């Protein structure tokens, strides 16, 4: 299977941006971040000592609706939590993240956004990194399905997701906290624990005894992928300085 590709700072107007492609599900997401920005015309927020994180999802070939708003709420509770909104210059200001689905199928009415969530999370995170938004940690996410035969499959696309018995999205922080779990379908808790273990090894890399799992490109964890993508950008941004050392 072809692994995801990503690059940082692909756009020029936004403060930060990232592109994230997941060939397995066919999704191609562009994320742009502007922040800290003034939020005009707003009243003093309930938390005047904190930044406000706003997220907007723009579907590729349809007009956004309630499904997008629900997904934004989920993303905000995960990504918004990572933002250190009390750092200097951020309180009372806004961090605006726009996610544009530029490749892949539309999510149908009343369908969960689960197949898209990891790509949205990764694109959003990378865009925040690109915009130098202070973050407490990074995250990595995995999409897993459990088939009728009980097999766990990684990254089922929208069509494949319809035939699985249960569908799970898990996101872990770079320190190993479970930041997000969204599970739909029919399953029991033991199945979920298997899914969780599998997701953790995908995100964090092979743990203790699971070394055998890794094969080819899969061996690289999502976490390492995110890190490398960010590091690549830093190396190219600071190439002039590094050269002079």
């Amino acid at each position, binding site marked *: 299977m072809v692994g995801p590709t990503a690059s940082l700072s692909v756009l020029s107007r936004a403060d930060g941006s990232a592109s994230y492609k997941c060939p397995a599900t066919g999704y191609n997401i562009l994320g742009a971040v502007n922040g800290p920005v003034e939020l005009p015309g*707003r*009243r*003093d*927020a*309930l*938390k*005047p*000592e904190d930044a*406000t994180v706003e997220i907007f999802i723009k579907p590729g070939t349809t007009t956004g609706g309630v499904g997008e708003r629900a997904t934004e709420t989920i993303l905000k509770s995960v990504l918004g939590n990572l933002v250190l909104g009390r750092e200097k210059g951020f*309180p*009372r200001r806004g961090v605006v993240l726009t996610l544009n689905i530029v490749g892949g199928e539309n999510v149908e009415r009343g369908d969960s956004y689960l197949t898209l969530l990891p790509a949205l999370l990764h694109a959003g995170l990378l865009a925040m990194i690109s915009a130098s938004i202070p973050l407490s940690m990074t995250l990595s996410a995995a999409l897993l399905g459990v088939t009728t035969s009980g097999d766990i499959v990684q990254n089922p696309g929208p069509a494949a997701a319809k035939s699985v018995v249960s569908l799970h999205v898990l996101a872990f922080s770079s320190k190993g906290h479970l930041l997000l779990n969204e599970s739909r379908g029919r399953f029991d808790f033991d199945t979920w624990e298997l899914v969780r273990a599998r997701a953790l090894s995908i995100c964090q890399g092979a743990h203790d005894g699971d070394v055998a799992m890794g094969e080819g490109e899969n061996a690289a964890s999502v976490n390492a992928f995110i890190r490398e993508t960010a590091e690549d950008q830093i190396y190219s941004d600071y190439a002039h300085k590094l050269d002079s050392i």
Partner: protein
Amino acid sequence: MASLPQIAIPGQRLGSLSSYSAGPGTHVQESFIYASIAGPVIADPAQPKIQPKPTLRVSRVISPKDLQPQNASTSDAAKPKPRYNTLPAIESNVLARVTRVQKRQAIVSILVVLDESEHLTSSQTASDNDNIASILTSAANPENHSGTDDLRFQALIRKEDVRAVEKDRVVMDEMFRVGDIVRGSVISLGDQSSYYITTARNDLGVVMARSEAGNMMFPISWKEMRDPVTGAGEPRKVARPF
């Protein structure tokens, strides 16, 4: 004196202006006093010099104390179960949270309007804002953080109203920080959006504050509070502790 009803509802005739004067919760029409809210009827006894007639009022606060006015002073077991709706008025004391500190003023949002009655000790300051049941059910509006502030009255503390002495040397940043809880006294209904509040009294000023490190601080002087964990002091306009 005709017998008074124990409970009144709006529009109920309570007594004649010839024998009573009209108090809060009532209105007068054609020389009779009528109730304007629902609640227990209380006749405050006449005070020879200032108020020759007993004052009729309908209480907003429903507490057993009000129902037995004869032992009002001893009813410290009063556990009010009122509805909340007191407006800030001139001279009412309020507790407010600082939402913004600017060079010339601090903006606060009023959380609690304290009862003006001076005789009550602090444990009895039962204002109409006090319905625990209602506070506990409705707190923050989770989806819209600014929503709750729309429900609270906003007020200003101007630089010259911060303290009574050395007014010209006040630096707002050393008086208040965002998030502090301040006790203040309303001095004006202000403009269309804000009340004006003063803290220029010993008992007024910051009553609760967190340090830079995020810990609750305690007051050590009239102008400084200290973080018990880090030991660092921070300047504030501190209210006199009780």
